[in-house]
């Protein structure tokens, strides 16, 4: 009995904080826009009894989902978010892998310090860090002032309010999520494997591609998903650093909720976003599972 209680707690947590809110959002997405508080109908009225419940369900429909397929803004936003997220993930991998590799190859007394430096930015609010990028990237920002001072450029670079700024923001923000899994895969690798590869005739570079890289594959996959999944729905970075041409679904969702006050359509956007994210999340879980089996 007590065992069930222990298991029940996390399940209750998931039920209360994930499943119930999701069902509410799902319900709103099936409702119609209405000028009321809350701004949609039908509302469930428990006092109406069985008839009221039947009436309530009969009013739910997929109208909002059909609307999403009719207006090309939405699927363009989904595709554009996916594209930005994929590109940003690959960029993060290119920046993160060498850093993780350097950390894993560093003398062991240095590793905790390097690890600390990777995690340190988390101690400052995410919003503040994104705002400070505005200070760096804007036309009168530190980067342009520095480049103008060195004489490399004569006109300030326009980075702020472009998709480039969004890429920079995502790479910067999610870099630790890329570095840590790759580092942990590289760190537990036995150094004698590289010596064995060399002993069997590999050059250093070959040894990297034939041994180090395949052995860090699970870390790379984990890191990529950890960056990809939150980036698809990212809202703060595109709205603060991106321009009007940066189309991301997180921003569309926000505007639908707060500018148009169209809760049902916004909920439908959120439900589809979730459905899209389920695929990489399942792939990520399978990768973790496979890794555990290989380690076991």
């Amino acid at each position, binding site marked *: 009995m007590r065992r069930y209680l222990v298991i029940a707690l996390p399940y209750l947590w998931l039920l209360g904080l994930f499943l119930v809110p999701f069902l509410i959002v799902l319900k709103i997405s099936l409702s119609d826009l209405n000028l009321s508080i809350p701004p949609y109908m039908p509302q469930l009225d428990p006092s109406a009894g069985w008839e009221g419940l039947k009436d309530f369900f009969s009013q739910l429909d997929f109208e909002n989902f059909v609307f999403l397929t009719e207006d090309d803004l939405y699927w363009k936003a989904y595709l554009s978010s996916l594209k930005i997220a994929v590109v940003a993930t690959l960029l993060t991998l290119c920046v993160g892998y060498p850093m993780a590799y350097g950390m894993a190859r560093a003398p062991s007394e240095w590793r905790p310090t390097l690890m600390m430096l990777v995690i340190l930015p988390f101690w400052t609010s995410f919003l503040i860090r994104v705002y400070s990028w505005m200070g760096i990237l804007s036309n009168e920002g530190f980067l342009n002032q520095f480049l103008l001072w060195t004489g490399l450029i004569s006109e300030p670079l326009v980075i702020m309010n472009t998709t480039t700024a969004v890429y920079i923001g995502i790479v910067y923000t999610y870099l630790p999520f890329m570095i840590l899994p790759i580092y942990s895969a590289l760190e537990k690798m*036995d150094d*004698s*494997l590289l*010596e*064995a*590869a*060399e*002993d*069997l*005739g*590999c*050059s250093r570079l*070959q040894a990297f591609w*034939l*041994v180090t890289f*395949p*052995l860090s*594959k699970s870390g790379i996959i984990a890191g990529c998903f950890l960056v990809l999944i939150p980036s698809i729905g990212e809202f703060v970075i595109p709205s603060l650093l991106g321009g009007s041409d940066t189309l991301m679904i997180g921003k569309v969702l926000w505007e639908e909720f707060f500018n148009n006050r169209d809760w049902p359509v916004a909920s439908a956007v959120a439900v589809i976003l979730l459905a899209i994210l389920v695929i990489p999340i399942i792939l990520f879980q399978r990768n973790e599972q496979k890794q555990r089996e*290989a380690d076991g």
Partner: protein
Amino acid sequence: MPANGAPIFAPWDDPDAKPLIRFENVTKRFGDFTAIDNLTLDIYEREFFALLGPSGCGKTTMMRMLAGFETPTEGKIFVGGQDMGPIAPNQRPVNMMFQSYALFPHLSVYENIAFGLRRDGKPKDEIHHRVEEMLRMVRLQKFAKRKPHQISGGQRQRVALARSLAKEPKLLLLDEPLGALDAKLREDTQFELMDIQEKTGTTFVIVTHDQEEAMTVASRIAVMDEGKVMQVSTPDRIYEFPDNAYVADFIGDVNLIEGRSSAAIDETVQIEWAEGQQAITAQTQRPIAAGQKVFYAIRPEKVTISPDRPADAVNAAQGKILDIAYLGNLSTYHVQLPTGQVIKSQMANTRRISRRPYTWEDQVWVSWTKTGGSVLEG
């Protein structure tokens, strides 16, 4: 072992034989620590050579210098007459079997063995042929498709051996190859290693801290301590004719008696070793000066135990039995002399014990012959 009439394999006794490996005044320092101290050593082709010593004696450093993972601070290493100094590990005609086996966990047994061959860019069917041959040799054909984590420790050890032999190296280095196996499997594998070494004709250099293993497999053993080679010789000479007290003590069980020697007359010396005890008469070929401090080393199995003083014994002493260790095939007796010194004697249990001939506190005599022990300079 050579058949009757075949010449005994002993290139180290042949002054014309060219060594395959030569360490020439090699010194290796790590910071202040001297791992290898001015070491000179020859190893010949087809030898099964063991580097034996306690951990930290420098034996692994020597092996890593041969493989190219460490470079000597001073001195030179030659393999087949070629100075190995400027040659990178991946260019050396040397392969190594690692203590951890270092099998690539993401590759199958087959791919592990093929790894080195593929780097040489050999044709596909030749690689396949060689891998199959190697799998047959280590009897792992059925496991070719498994990953290293799907096979047992003993099988992993055999994969590591097959992988390191696949490229037909001139020299195979084995770093504690049997360290991770349990006792029974270890014994079987030792004989398997000797078999494979003989079949392939490859020169093997094995690093081990297990003297029994070294004695079993090796044609010659180098006993090392603190970066120095204490003695290089065949297993029987290392055991029976140790050069110094360190080797005598490190290999097997020994009674070490300290004393002062008389000058040698007809290769015979008298060693005064304790007040009131008869001097030990011993044969030696070493030039011992009168009054020189020496160690007399005698193996327990060369010490006989008897209730009375044997009439013909050259060396004998009386004492009482302090301890008896029954080992099944042997019994070891610890006999305490009136001087307080304990002499170990080992007797084969050739008959089943219905009653022990000796028991605790018995007064007995220990005796040994003139040639039984070694006189070592202290």
